[in-house]
């Protein structure tokens, strides 16, 4: 009974509450008595084990309003699904850390450490989207007073997603004391957006002036709302000044948005390009330099991705570092596999492109089915390390996702290392010699067979590297390779066979072109248009963007 009284009294006492009201909180607590401060919290927390989500919501709403040191860690645990309850009758609530042996428990009310238990003995407190939104809002409100400006910024972002009159009032108040200009502008803009419906024309005008400095799409649509016309073409807005100001503001915001949108599209294109280059660059070596049509190239990429999966499986504790181990591991696995293919099959088919094509296609099917039998036909889940998740937000329009950024950098790194190998090392010299004139190279004492194997191994190893990168973007499954093989050949042929720089430029330009066409034509048509373009281009210039010149070209 007491519990219900507390909950109800809180709800009643706090009904007209605004976000900033801590006075009301004290009142409520005073009703239940100062000594009950923790016991009230305790009573509410124990309610969290109920199954009904709507009852849980009432409980969380009450907890959110408590001024207790433990509230924050409780809410964070609930949000991150680290809050559990005991299966036995009083259902004590625990905050949990996952450790090797099981779960490390902490009492949610007292904060005492309670030792480690097995995973089966406790159950998770489930929440839904409504509760998540409620908790995020509450945590953000607490964060609004944080010392760290980035925390405050995040809090303002979270809260402005759900603008209620209470939040507007709170922003209006807090923005006066805010020292960070960006955060202040954000709050003021949110307030101004609400002020657009004010009755006083001067207030509306001032609000428009604030909004003109922002670049949120959201504000454009509210501003456009001001410009609504009725059936006779007369503005519903009475103030002429407001109308001109709003039109001007919309123009300003939209031009700013479109500028950053173009930058973002360019980044999308470069990032798509980097994936294409990474997948194709190994092929540029085997196909371009050696002239071998390797249909199993996609499967070598797949092997690299599966290597990443296995590495993560072997070292579940060091997830953050797993990629650094996976990179050399994938290079070695795919590289060795490539050498094996070269030694076992391709060497016996030199100069017979059709047979090579069929044989490598067969190998690709074998490798796919092999992976299916070993790892199951289902996709495997490869985790993304923390440092690769999320994005850098420059402003509301432009945000660059971190994983793409890293992959872009990785592609460039791989490219330059490969270029150096081919241009500056003994192996590179031999490779170029063999690709230009095999017979002459042989006569000069180069062991062409060894060079062939190493070159093919190098190309295959780079395919493995592509697999590591792709495991962070797409499915790791038996079909991974198939989806990239066509694109890879496209990039190499377009760039001009036997030219690494050509591959780089062709990959990036195809990526950027696709991304700029996509918004107008849609993803399906964009792909078709790019393909048609390449077909026409190859008709005109069969040797691609950067054809090999001189004697090498005739070989």
């Amino acid at each position, binding site marked *: 009974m007491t519990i219900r009284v507390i909950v109800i009294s809180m709800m009643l006492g706090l009904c007209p509450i605004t976000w900033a009201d801590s006075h009301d909180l004290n009142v409520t607590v005073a009703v239940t008595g100062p000594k009950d401060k923790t016991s009230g919290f305790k009573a509410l927390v124990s309610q969290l084990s109920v199954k009904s989500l709507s009852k849980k919501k009432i409980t969380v709403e009450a907890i959110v309003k408590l001024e207790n040191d433990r509230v924050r860690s409780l809410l964070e645990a609930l949000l991150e699904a680290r809050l559990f309850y005991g299966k036995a009758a009083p259902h004590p609530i625990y905050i949990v850390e996952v450790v090797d042996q099981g779960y490390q428990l902490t009492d949610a009310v007292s904060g005492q450490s309670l030792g480690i238990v097995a995973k089966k003995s406790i159950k998770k407190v489930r929440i839904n989207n409504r509760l998540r939104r409620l908790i995020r809002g509450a945590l953000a409100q607490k964060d609004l007073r944080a010392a760290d400006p980035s925390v405050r910024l995040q809090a303002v972002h979270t809260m402005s*997603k759900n603008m209620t009159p209470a939040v507007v009032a709170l922003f209006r108040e807090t923005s006066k004391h805010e020292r960070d200009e960006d955060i202040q502008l954000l709050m003021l803009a949110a307030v101004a957006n609400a002020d657009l419906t004010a009755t006083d024309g001067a207030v509306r005008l001032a609000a428009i002036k604030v909004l003109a400095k922002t670049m949120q799409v959201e504000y454009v649509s509210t501003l456009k709302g001001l410009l609504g016309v009725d059936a006779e073409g007369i503005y519903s807005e009475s103030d002429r000044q407001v109308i001109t100001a709003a039109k001007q503001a919309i123009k300003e915001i939209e031009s700013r948005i479109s500028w950053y949108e173009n930058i973002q599209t360019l980044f999308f294109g470069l990032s798509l390009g980097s994936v294409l280059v990474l997948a194709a660059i190994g092929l540029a070596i085997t196909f371009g330099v050696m002239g071998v049509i390797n249909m199993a190239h996609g499967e070598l990429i797949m092997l690299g991705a599966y290597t990443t999966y296995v590495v993560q499986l072997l070292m579940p504790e060091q997830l953050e570092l797993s990629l650094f181990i996976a990179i050399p591991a994938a290079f070695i696995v795919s590289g060795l596999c490539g050498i094996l293919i070269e030694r076992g099959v391709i060497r016996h088919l030199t100069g017979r492109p059709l047979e090579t094509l069929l044989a490598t296609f067969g190998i690709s099917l074998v490798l796919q089915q092999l992976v299916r039998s070993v790892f199951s036909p289902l996709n495997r889940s490869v985790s993304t390390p923390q440092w690769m998740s999320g994005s850098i937000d420059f402003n509301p329009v432009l945000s660059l996702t971190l994983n793409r950024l890293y992959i872009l950098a990785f592609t460039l790194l791989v490219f330059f290392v490969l270029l150096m190998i081919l241009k500056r090392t003994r192996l590179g010299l031999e490779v170029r010699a063999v690709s230009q004139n095999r017979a002459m190279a042989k006569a000069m004492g180069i062991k062409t067979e060894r060079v062939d194997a190493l070159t093919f191994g190098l190309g295959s190893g780079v395919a493995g590297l592509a697999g590591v990168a792709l495991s962070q973007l797409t499915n790791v499954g*038996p079909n991974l390779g198939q989806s990239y093989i066509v694109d890879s050949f496209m990039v190499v042929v377009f760039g001009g066979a036997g030219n690494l720089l050509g591959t780089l430029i062709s990959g990036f330009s195809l990526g950027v072109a696709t991304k700029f066409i996509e918004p107008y034509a849609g993803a399906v048509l964009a792909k078709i248009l790019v393909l048609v373009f390449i077909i026409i281009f190859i008709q005109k210039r069969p040797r691609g963007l950067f054809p090999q010149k001189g004697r090498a070209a005739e070989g």
Partner: protein
Amino acid sequence: MMFLKKAMRSLSAVAITAGVLLSPGAMAFNLFGDTIKVGVLHSLSGTMAISETTLKDTMLMLIEEQNAKGGLLGKKLEAVVVDPASNWPLFAEKARGLLTQDKVDVMFGCWTSVSRKSVLPVIEELNGLLFYPVQYEGEESSKNVFYTGAAPNQQAIPAVDYLMNDIGVKRWVLAGTDYVYPRTTNKILEAYLKLKGVADEDIMINYTPFGHSDWQSIVADVKKFGSAGKKTAVVSTINGDANVPFYKELGNQGVSADDIPVIAFSVGEEELSGLDTKPLVGHLAAWNYFMSVDAPENAAFIKKWHAFIKDPKRVTNDPMEAHYIGFNMWVKAVEKAGTTDVDAVEQAMLGIKFPNLTGGMAVMNSNHHLSKPVLIGEIQEDGQLETVWETDGLVWGDAWTDYLPGSKDIVANWRPNMRCGNYNTKTHKCSGQNF
């Protein structure tokens, strides 16, 4: 050429060995002489192997269980497993083989609508019987097919209702893979949304190719579309592999389920098990069954599944439940008819009831579709779907949607008084077109 021949021979040897290894049930009961043959027509290789292999295993489990109970009509059941390899025309070929050479009494199979459409003429010509376990776009009712998955009104429409009424969604992104199921479903949804008063500018439709992996600009577009001040949701008919990079991109661009929830019709427990689910928490899925549903039948089924597949981590999903219901209904119908003759079983199937796994009772209606409950679930950290909303009772599967002009007046009824899959109530004609 010698080498090639050799290579091809060894390749086919590999393929055959792999096939035998993958289908242990194929020759299980040949020695018993008189058996009832059950054809299993699911891809075990190629793109769809990811989803269909599990269904093949489910069928083997159900057949094994039935044999342990003493078979059917005093005979053992024998599974005939074939691999159509995600190749649509091959589905038709394999179905023909099952019916003419293996002489199976019933088939369980297909996943994509394309594969079903390809099998359809064959089974209608040879009078076979197919149980199709996957949610699909409707607009079909064949005498020879029982549809145990959801029709649009058992998945898409309730999902949209939930978003509209419970979440207050005003702006809609209909995103799908470019093929028949998403296109038809989105057409139905668009008509339905407009009927509910949603303006044209509040609907965004987007199609992507199969296996699309670069979602950057589409997610950015969705983000922009969703920041117009009205609550926005994505209704996703994106199929198969493309989902993983789509959700990854959503997570990376910071689109959380609180801002723009994504409700998916093709993402279940199986697909989620191949995914890092952290960024997906709170996104939605609509199905007729979740593994997390707390019902004794479900617990028993999961236990049996884990024992059969010998892996306690494997999940169960909606199409598995559909096969479970379909197979058990077929067993009941055969017992009722006393024969496996297709026409007799088809009539016996109508009105058959069997408990589903979520604590209710599935009924086979006269239009060859089931009555099912509709569940909406939120994705949890552990890859399970937690029910947040469900329909009050069972929803009757409507073969022909009421929201498209062409199909509004068409009904399907296979009872003796009508026996038509597409009867036009206006012209009072059965067009005779069965698919």
